[in-house]
């Protein structure tokens, strides 16, 4: 070993330099459009693509106009509620999968996987007629509400995400603590609230925050199922893109970008405190674990 490194040392490592250079190039590529949006959000021109000068006009018009502000409020409300729904459904499913797997769990995981891999456009075109059927033909009027449609649609994908995160967390820990509590005469309720719940809490919290950001960013399904008057911000932006790009669009995008990054940072902190490695965190956050 020592002789090998002694031979290698004087030689300059061109290969490593080439790899590092490639790394820098890829990072520039990854951040180029984001940087562009942030820079152009300070454009004072009337059209986003034509740079006029530096100023806060875009941000001013965002805060002074009701439409974009309302859109952001709708998004935040929908995101919070759909995250709650997804966290509840997904956590219970995750516990069941990790602690009582059986014949049903294979089929259930296939369903979860299908939810995760189906292209969003297919969910979108499936849900629109479905809501019309439920709301108008079957007269379940709740499904004519834009809020209900958005909350329910967003909570489908994110329930699958929360399920997998909670399951992974509990599967990584054996049941001995819960058993010990049982042996010490803890009631099933007590065992759950005092042992299982604290153990799975980081996963539940991380899953809930991911569900929040997934809903906040959802564009494709939202633009199909949303109803006039309840417009989430990506749908507002999408509609503006088709008409004309104003600097205000870049300003909203920048603000929402900051919010998302903040939440994702929080997820990373929660998972890190829960004891995950950085590659484990990355895998969890992209659903690639």
């Amino acid at each position, binding site marked *: 070993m020592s002789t090998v490194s002694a031979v290698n040392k004087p030689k300059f490592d061109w290969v490593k330099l080439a790899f590092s250079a*490639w790394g820098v190039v890829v990072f520039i590529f990854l951040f180029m*459009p984001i940087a562009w*949006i942030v820079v152009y959000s300070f454009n004072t021109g009337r059209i986003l693509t034509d740079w006029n000068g530096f100023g806060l006009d875009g941000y001013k018009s965002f805060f002074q106009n009701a439409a974009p502000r309302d859109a952001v409020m709708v998004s935040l409300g929908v995101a919070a509620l759909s995250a709650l729904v997804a966290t509840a*459904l997904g956590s219970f499913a995750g*516990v069941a999968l990790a602690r009582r797997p*059986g014949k049903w769990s294979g089929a259930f995981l296939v369903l979860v996987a299908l939810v995760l891999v189906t292209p969003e456009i297919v969910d979108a075109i499936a849900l629109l*007629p479905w809501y019309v059927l439920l709301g108008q033909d079957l007269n379940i009027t709740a499904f004519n509400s834009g809020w209900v449609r958005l909350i329910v*649609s967003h909570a489908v994908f994110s329930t699958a995400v929360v399920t997998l995160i909670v399951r992974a967390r509990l599967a990584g820990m054996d049941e001995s603590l819960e058993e010990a509590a049982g042996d010490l005469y803890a009631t099933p309720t007590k065992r759950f609230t005092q042992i299982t719940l604290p153990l799975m809490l980081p996963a539940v919290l991380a899953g809930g925050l991911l569900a929040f950001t997934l809903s906040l960013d959802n564009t494709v399904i939202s633009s199909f199922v949303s109803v006039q008057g309840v417009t989430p911000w990506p749908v507002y932006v999408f509609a503006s893109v088709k008409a004309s790009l104003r600097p205000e669009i870049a300003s909203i995008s920048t603000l929402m970008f900051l919010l998302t990054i903040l939440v994702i940072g929080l997820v990373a902190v929660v998972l890190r405190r829960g004891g995950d490695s950085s*590659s484990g965190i990355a895998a969890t956050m992209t659903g690639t674990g």
Partner: protein
Amino acid sequence: MTTDTVGTADTGAAAPKASSPVRNKRRRGAPKFLLALPAWTWFILFFALPVGLVLLYSLGEQVSAFVQKPDVSPDVWSLDNFDKAIEPEYMPVFWRTLKISIIGTFICLLISVPFAYWLATKVDPRWRGLLLGLVLVPFWTNFLVRTIGWQLILSPNGLVSDGLQKVGLRDDPLALLYTQTGVQIGVVYNYLPLMILPLYVAFDRTEPALREASKDLGASRVKTFFQVTMPLAMPGAIAGMLLVFIPLMGDYITPVLLGGAKGNMAGSLVAGQFLETFNWSQGAAMAVIMIAFILAALIVAALLGLLLRAGLRANRRITLPQATRS
């Protein structure tokens, strides 16, 4: 009891399964699989049934140009919508979608393999977490916003066109926006993190000792990479290709924003039938064809992969332990 605690440590979910009958007997508690019942119901109500409805709608027919909901009573069922979807007006869009997706997946792979390898093995471990976090930033930036960013960069008075003119490589503005090339750049960008992350995880899990052993035994760096490291990272590469290819085939935002008429893809074709033409039956049939394209491509890719593996195995003298799948 002891055996299953030992087992749980590395086999994860599998171990409790084996011991659950014993435990169930001891605890008279409620069956916990009932906890998954709400999620079951949820997925069936808002995923399985709606998607099933798409299949039904694809057999129906449009009532009139002003009514969105098609007639789906069994007596009008036909494959007319499918016939129409494979007419020369639409069929090239499906093939173009497939072409863009295959090229996009391979470009992502070519960019990501050296990048993920560098990140997992060459970067100082102290910086690794931070750099990995930086890869996650674009992944978590709104898809639409990222694509608008590319619209700014690719527009005729944007960075690429202006830059090339200033350097003197071009005399006139370069039209990348609203072309197939524009879409290709956009999709590679949009799905790149989905390739980088599983590859990173895979490279991260390969033992450095195996690479060192290979070098100590006289293999060159290139040989070590292609015969030791890459075979071990294959599960990551396959996961990445699936994660990129499937959503790319159904992409709707990128072609709408960057493609225009020349870079139209299946996703925007389907969406147009629902949002502009209001012909739900036609759109549903197109969606079914899109899914058929995805499944067919995956089957062909799996067969090619198996052939390739058999070929490589025959040429390699040693067999490596396969990396554990997550």
